[in-house]
């Protein structure tokens, strides 16, 4: 299992309409061996392109990639290893199973190409099938399988080769919600069991939080932040990450809506002379009777989502969301008060949108 | 692409167009076929067609009918197929058409030709003027007259008089052996300067012309195809003749390789006319063209009867075109006027003088002016006494197809003359059995 390091990866596309588009603007990432690394970002942020570059299907315009110390691709030094030489495996969103081959032939195909002897191949295929519990459907054709089964076969074909790096491009997005959750845990389990260096691309932040040992948030070809799920959630580096992570998204409050509790803000504003903007997670908002709250507002709508419920509040024209566990004693239309613990407040510089520490 | 409304608008335009075109068509064929058309089909080399255009113009001035000339392909096989299709379909056009001598029998027996007797009797038209043998052999059946010879044709030996003189020969070869010796010697010399020079060019491609050349070689060596109106082709004389033809190409090489692939009348004439040949076997029409200005052999060409084997006499296949009136013609009287016009003395003489076609009428050959202006007429008259007709059978197309195929195969060196003639004999016997009543 090899670590992967990306140095200043840039990728320029020439499109007729928009001229040269820079899909990746200098990516630097370190992925430790055996770790489950997630590339998270909205669609069109270049995460799939980056994955293809790591896999060797596409070439970077600039920059280098190393597996451990071996240079895998370097635009400057004209080095380019084919996917076969990099010994990477990949699972596509569309699973990309060979429709004319049975499941067994699909899984054993890469081994056959690598000219492994027959006994070795069938042994490995049986082992992979065992891990993914797809022994009974080995002789079936992809056309006859369900979504989940096809996904497992694609995974089987990837892990059977014990590759240096396992690459997954939104493999679960075609499954229905229930199946997605079970597959998530299975995927995590298999990754840990085989200690595979895995790079997983997704736009679903809950998936990223639950699967990733490390997460890198991307936006328009730039890394916004890399860190553990905890760091990403609790210490977002900028407004984009803060808003992108967490459902429902963090409330953003400008200074006049929260003038009451200015002590902390005053201190920071004074010694850094920046104008600030504040972010508050819906679960940190407590709804209290009108007169006790720091802010006044009214409760517009209540949306129960299972064990919790979402409260849509409006505070002098601005909409704020709160997430509470137990049922609320207020009902729609009441005027309420809002109070929150001051150090749960996250402060950001308005222009550069960077988070500010004490 | 198209917005909703013009899409629909565009669509109705389409529908309207389709309906109108369809209606237009319903009308057009009817109106054009209502007024009768007076048409004649003419084929042959482009020069021939141009000459026919002048004759038709003359006829129109004299009789002020509007006669439309329709151009047919050069080669007779395709002309024949077009005629069979139109007559089988009982088409009113063509009203008049030219027929090769070998078609007449099938056309008569298929009931496609209008008997000319009642026209002839009505205007006591004398057939005495024409060569009696041709009228009897080709144009009449159960003593009814169905066609008249417009021009008859024989094959002659064209030779390069300058080259023969240059190499010390006083007169052209009388026997095939002499022709062979002269050709081999002169061809070797000439090839030093002109690589594509050939000794003797003649029609060997797989088409009707090949049957004529084979008949000439065979008859001039004592052979032939018909023996008292049944086919007898596998004779020793014929084998000798075919062997000689094959040797000209494969053994002695004095005839080019494309003799059996591309050599038809026009290709043979052009090769000789370009100065690439010593001897040429071709019909009489070639003489006129060899004398034209852009011909390399102008003034250097002589003509003579075809050579023959010692002890036998020179023979030429009887060619030529006969004119007949279609049974389904809608303008038979006008058609008869044109037939009379074309076979009149004046036109036949003009035809001979202008493009060198030999009339079917004997009196033109005895005309003073003709003899004085064209001394070769004497030779032609003599040639017409040495002609041999191809078999007159209604199923001649099947017969000729077999003969052409195997003779050509043999010329290409794929079969021995003996075996080729034996296969032809067997197949012709089968065909005879099929089509005899």
């Amino acid at each position, binding site marked *: 299992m090899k670590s992967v390091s990306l140095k200043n990866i840039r990728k320029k596309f020439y499109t007729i309409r928009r001229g040269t588009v820079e899909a990746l603007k200098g990516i630097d990432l370190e992925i430790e061996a055996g770790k489950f690394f997630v590339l998270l970002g909205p669609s069109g942020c270049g995460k799939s392109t980056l994955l293809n570059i790591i896999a060797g299907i596409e070439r970077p315009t600039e920059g280098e990639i190393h597996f451990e110390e071996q240079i895998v691709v370097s635009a400057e030094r004209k080095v*380019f290893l*084919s996917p076969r030489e990099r010994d990477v495996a990949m699972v596509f969103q569309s699973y990309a199973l060979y429709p004319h081959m049975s499941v067994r032939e699909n899984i054993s195909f890469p081994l056959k190409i690598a000219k492994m002897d027959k006994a070795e191949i069938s042994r490995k295929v049986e082992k992979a099938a065992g891990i993914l519990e797809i022994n009974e459907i080995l002789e079936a054709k992809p056309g006859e399988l369900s979504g989940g089964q096809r996904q497992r076969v694609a995974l089987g074909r990837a892990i059977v080769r014990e590759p240096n790096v396992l690459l997954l491009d939104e493999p679960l997005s075609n499954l229905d919600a229930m199946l997605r959750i079970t597959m998530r845990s299975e995927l995590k389990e298999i990754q840990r069991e085989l200690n595979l260096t895995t790079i997983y691309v997704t736009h679903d932040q809950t998936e990223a939080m639950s699967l990733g040992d490390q997460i890198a948030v991307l936006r328009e070809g730039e890394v916004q932040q890399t860190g553990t799920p905890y760091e990403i959630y609790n210490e977002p580096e900028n407004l984009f990450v803060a808003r992108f992570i967490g459902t429902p998204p963090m409330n953003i409050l400008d200074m006049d809506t929260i003038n009451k509790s200015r002590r902390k803000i005053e201190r920071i504003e004074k010694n850094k002379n920046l104008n600030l903007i504040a972010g508050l997670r819906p679960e940190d908002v407590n709804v209290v009777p009108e007169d006790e709250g720091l802010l006044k507002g009214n409760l517009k709508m209540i949306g129960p989502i299972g064990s919790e419920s979402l409260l849509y509040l409006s505070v002098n024209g601005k909409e704020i969301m709160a997430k509470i566990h137990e049922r609320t004693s207020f009902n729609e239309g009441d005027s309420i008060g809002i109070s929150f613990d001051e150090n749960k407040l996250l402060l950001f510089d308005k222009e550069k949108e960077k988070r500010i520490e004490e | 692409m*198209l917005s*909703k409304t013009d*899409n*629909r608008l*565009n*669509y109705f335009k389409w*529908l309207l*167009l*389709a309906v109108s*075109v*369809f209606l237009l*068509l319903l009308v*057009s*064929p009817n109106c*054009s*076929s209502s007024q009768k058309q007076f*048409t004649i089909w003419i084929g042959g080399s*482009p*020069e021939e*067609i*141009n000459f026919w*255009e002048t004759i038709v113009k003359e006829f129109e001035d004299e009789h002020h009918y509007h006669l439309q*000339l*329709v*151009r*047919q*392909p*050069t*080669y007779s096989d*395709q002309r024949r197929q*077009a005629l069979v*299709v*139109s007559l*089988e*379909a*009982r*088409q009113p*056009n063509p009203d008049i058409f030219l027929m090769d001598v070998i078609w007449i029998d099938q056309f008569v027996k298929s009931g496609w030709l209008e008997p000319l007797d009642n026209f002839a009797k009505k205007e006591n038209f004398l057939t005495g003027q024409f060569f009696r043998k041709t009228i009897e052999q080709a144009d009449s059946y159960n003593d009814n007259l169905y066609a008249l010879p417009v021009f008859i044709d024989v094959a002659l030996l064209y030779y390069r008089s300058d080259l023969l003189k240059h190499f010390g020969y006083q007169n052209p070869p009388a026997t095939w052996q002499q022709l062979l010796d002269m050709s081999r010697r002169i061809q070797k010399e000439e090839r030093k300067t002109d690589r594509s020079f050939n000794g003797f060019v003649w029609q060997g491609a797989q088409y009707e012309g090949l049957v004529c050349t084979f008949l000439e070689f065979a008859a001039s060596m004592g052979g032939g195809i018909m023996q008292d109106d049944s086919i007898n082709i596998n004779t020793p004389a014929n084998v000798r003749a075919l062997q000689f033809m094959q040797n000209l190409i494969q053994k002695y090489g004095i005839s080019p390789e494309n003799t059996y692939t591309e050599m038809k009348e026009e290709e043979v004439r*052009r090769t000789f006319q*370009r100065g690439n040949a010593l001897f040429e076997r071709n019909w009489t029409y070639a003489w006129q063209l060899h004398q034209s200005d852009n011909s390399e052999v102008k003034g250097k060409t002589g003509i003579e009867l075809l050579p023959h084997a010692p002890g036998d006499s020179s023979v030429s296949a009887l060619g030529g075109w006969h004119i007949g009136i279609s049974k389904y013609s809608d303008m038979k009287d006008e058609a008869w006027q044109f037939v009379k016009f074309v076979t009149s003395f004046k036109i036949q003489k003009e035809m001979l003088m202008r493009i060198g076609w030999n009339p079917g009428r004997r009196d033109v050959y005895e005309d003073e002016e003709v003899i004085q202006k064209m001394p070769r007429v004497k030779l032609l008259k003599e040639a017409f006494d040495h002609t041999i007709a191809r078999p007159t059978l209604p199923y001649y197309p099947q017969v000729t197809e077999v003969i052409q195929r195997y003779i050509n195969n043999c010329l290409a060196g794929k079969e021995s003359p003996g075996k080729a003639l034996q296969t032809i004999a067997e197949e012709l016997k089968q065909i005879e059995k099929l089509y005899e009543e």
Partner: protein
Amino acid sequence: MREQKTITIFKFFGAVFLLLFCILPFVWMIVISLTKNPDFFASGQSASFTISNYTDLLSNGSTHLIDYLRNSLIVSIVSAICATLFASFSAYAITRLNFPGRILIPLVLLAFSMFPQISIIGYLFKLMTRLGWINTYYALIFPYITLGLPLALWIMLSYLSRLSSELDKAALVDGATRLQVLLKIIFPIALPGIFSTFMLILIYSFNEFLFALMLTIDYKARTIPVGIALFEGLHGQIPWGYIMASAVIAVVPLIILIAFFQRYIIQGLTEGAVKG
């Protein structure tokens, strides 16, 4: 790296070979049609390019080239229109209505299309003679329609089966008759399909030779392929200049059609074959 190079080399040589393979005879035809002596290769004379071949052909009425071209265009356009209409009507019925023999019709038609023309022309010639249609446009239009029907039906079937049937259910609910539904809703949407079917049948009818050879006699109905196959030049030594010039005249309308509508044609071909 090595593999990428081999692919680009294959792509380059393949493209050049493709162009040469398709264009060379076509260009050679145009070259010969413009030269006074077509044997300039062998006889070494200068090619002396001139357009006299064309002027002679067009001025000399007895070649009837323009009549042949007119006949070809009329016959193929009309039979293309009719074949497309007939096929669209029955494709609509097959994809939208439920009736006995619904699957039978396309399959039987496919089987009919397997019959070689020669087995049809024999008796068809006698039939046309009895009808008195020989040497008229009918003799060609109706056979060309039937020749085109199988392909037309297959293309229209694949087009119409892709249009969801809710469309015309809604229209029926609004009170339209089936014919109105067909003309007002289905046809406008399936117009690209209709157009590519029309183009294909037009080209196939323009190419047909055997029926034209046997069912037409002279310039009144004969089509251009037969005209050129039997054409032996005007005058002069070697007829190839004229024959190639007449070929160019015949081919020009086709080239224009392809240049403008190649997208439809290719679409039609793929629909027809991939679905077929």
